[in-house]
């Protein structure tokens, strides 16, 4: 799966995307977040601020209970400030 990061999440991580193969037991965004939290301190720090992070699966904003598949594009970003 492809994971995209925007705004302060991208800055903090020092990269705008990463990809990996989804473990078969991982089925929701919430489980993906738990997995990413364990990766390293920077991921852990970012996802500890989970309430300030929105998630989009295939360019649609979804809840953290949303299901995920291996070929999904998953984006994490702060609340939108356009216009």
């Amino acid at each position, binding site marked *: 799966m492809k994971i995209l990061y925007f*705004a302060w999440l991208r800055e903090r991580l020092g990269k705008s995307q990463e990809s990996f193969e989804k473990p078969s037991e991982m089925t929701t965004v919430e489980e993906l977040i738990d997995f990413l939290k364990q990766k390293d301190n920077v991921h852990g720090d970012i996802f500890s601020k989970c309430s300030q992070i929105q998630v989009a699966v295939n360019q649609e904003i979804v809840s953290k209970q949303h299901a995920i598949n291996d070929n999904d594009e998953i984006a994490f970003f702060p609340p939108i400030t*356009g216009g």
Partner: protein
Amino acid sequence: MILLQKQDIKLDQVINNFHKKNKNIGAVVTFLGLVRDFNNGEIVKEMSLEHYPQMTLKELSKVGEMAREKWDLIDYRIIHRYGPLKPGEKIVFILTASEHRQNAFEACEFIIDWLKVKAPFWKCEKSDQTSHWVEQKSKDLQKADEWLKKIS
């Protein structure tokens, strides 16, 4: 029509060219959003707009079509810039066209209120020494909620 671009928005070209083929248009309303040099008590020297290109296009198309359907728009334009912008520069331009003015006014206000919280853009403001990501305003969320009640 939706446009995402780095370059400046040429207002005269947009306004003068779009309605020539549509002689049933009786009213055109426009909104122009600009970069201010001061925000929340701090001087702004530059503002950088980051976005999520594929999703931005989807969301802007969605809001445009919602407005077209709800207010019977004959035509509309949403032009949003991204990248580094200086105070005084244009950020977003919205144009709505309908037979009568009330629909064009309401649709234009809806589009800007809706895209502010739905189209994935993030503003980073820079002064001489510091830069920070702008936070979403609860007032903007409330406005989108109010529209949701009105249009559903």
